[in-house]
């Protein structure tokens, strides 16, 4: 009788411990860490910004016009890519002055800013999570500020996009320029995107290149003159 009770206690203990272990194991917090890197043209040099640009204009961002998928089907670029999503934000920009290039008599142009991309991440259990990775270079344009922007023309979409990184310069109230870029050593912008799905935490770390600012502090006239020398 005593032996039977002992056996029951042992079996019950094993069952309880097993259940607890299973519960702990299945609810264990897990972190899945992804590192994203990209190759894009970068410069610390105003001359190179000007040389790389089809168009350099001074003016103001007016509004966010639309959002679209910059990833296109390679066989027919009028269609979206069914496998990739790269979100572009198209802004309307009012041109006050053309420093380089030609926009005929247009007063408004459209500029595309790369905003985010979707990354497929396997969670280790056979599920694929679609994670949004905000572009570490994206800076939301200030609709109240004056800018000089360095652009390339995209004929298939009839709009402009950044010629190189950096590509925007803000003009302050003293008519001095301030270079805009998340790559500047002085900018301490979070480049990590994190989200949770169930008991799993997904971290996407964006690896970026640091650059020096050799432009901020110039007067707008000095900036225009330097760009004109590179036309």
């Amino acid at each position, binding site marked *: 009788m005593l032996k039977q009770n002992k056996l029951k206690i042992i079996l019950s203990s094993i069952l309880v411990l097993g259940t607890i272990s299973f519960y702990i194991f299945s609810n264990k917090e897990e972190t899945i860490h992804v590192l*994203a890197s990209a190759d894009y*043209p970068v410069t610390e040099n105003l001359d190179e910004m000007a040389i790389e640009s089809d168009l350099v204009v001074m003016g103001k961002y007016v509004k966010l016009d639309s959002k679209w998928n910059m990833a*296109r089907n390679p066989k027919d670029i009028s269609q979206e890519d069914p496998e990739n999503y790269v979100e572009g934000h198209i802004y309307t920009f009012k041109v006050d002055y053309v420093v380089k290039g030609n926009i005929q008599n247009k007063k408004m142009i459209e500029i595309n800013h790369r905003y985010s991309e979707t990354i497929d991440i396997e969670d280790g259990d056979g599920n694929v999570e679609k994670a949004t990775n905000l572009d570490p270079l994206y800076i939301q344009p200030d609709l109240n500020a004056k800018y000089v922007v360095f652009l390339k023309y995209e004929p298939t979409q009839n709009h402009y996009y950044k010629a190189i990184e950096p590509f925007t310069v803000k003009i302050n109230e003293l008519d001095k320029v301030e270079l805009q870029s998340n790559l500047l050593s002085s900018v301490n912008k979070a480049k990590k995107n994190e989200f949770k799905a169930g008991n799993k935490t997904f971290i996407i770390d964006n690896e970026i290149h640091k650059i020096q600012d050799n432009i901020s502090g110039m007067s707008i006239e000095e900036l225009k003159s330097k760009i004109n020398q590179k036309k």
Partner: protein
Amino acid sequence: MKRYAVLKGIGTIVFGSVLFCNSSFAYELEGYKMPATSTSYKWGSNLDSGSSVIKTGFIDAMTNWENKTVWNDFFYNSNSLNTLNSWYEVSSSYYGRNTSYGVSDGVADYFKSEVNSGNSNITKINVAKSTATHELGHAMGIDHNDINSIMNSARNREVLYMPQTDDINGIAAIY
């Protein structure tokens, strides 16, 4: 004469050390590596069949890493988790991207390296090769820098498309 020889010897050692330090520590590391210096890959859906300048770029890039560094081998396996592919991103100055997964323990589980076929410069073979070599550099564990290196984002991609001394040292430091 003897004193001159000693001074010359010391000078050579000091100069050599300076050169060694400069070339050994200029690279930047990602903080992870691949499990071994021999790894498989498969082609992604856009490069799986036929030939293209991007596929050639990747093939040349793999050969260059194998020949110039301690990296041993990239070999094809249709079941590999590592993928080499292209995507078409319009209105973008992006040349390429690499995503390495499961890097928290210092060893990547797998990677995906891609070249942007929507970049108008990518039709130039040296540019495609330079981009593919750069992306594979990330996959193996080396990071961006600002010196004469395939990992420098400000490089001239038409001229610089092979791993440089610093890149070779970087791979040697990891593996």
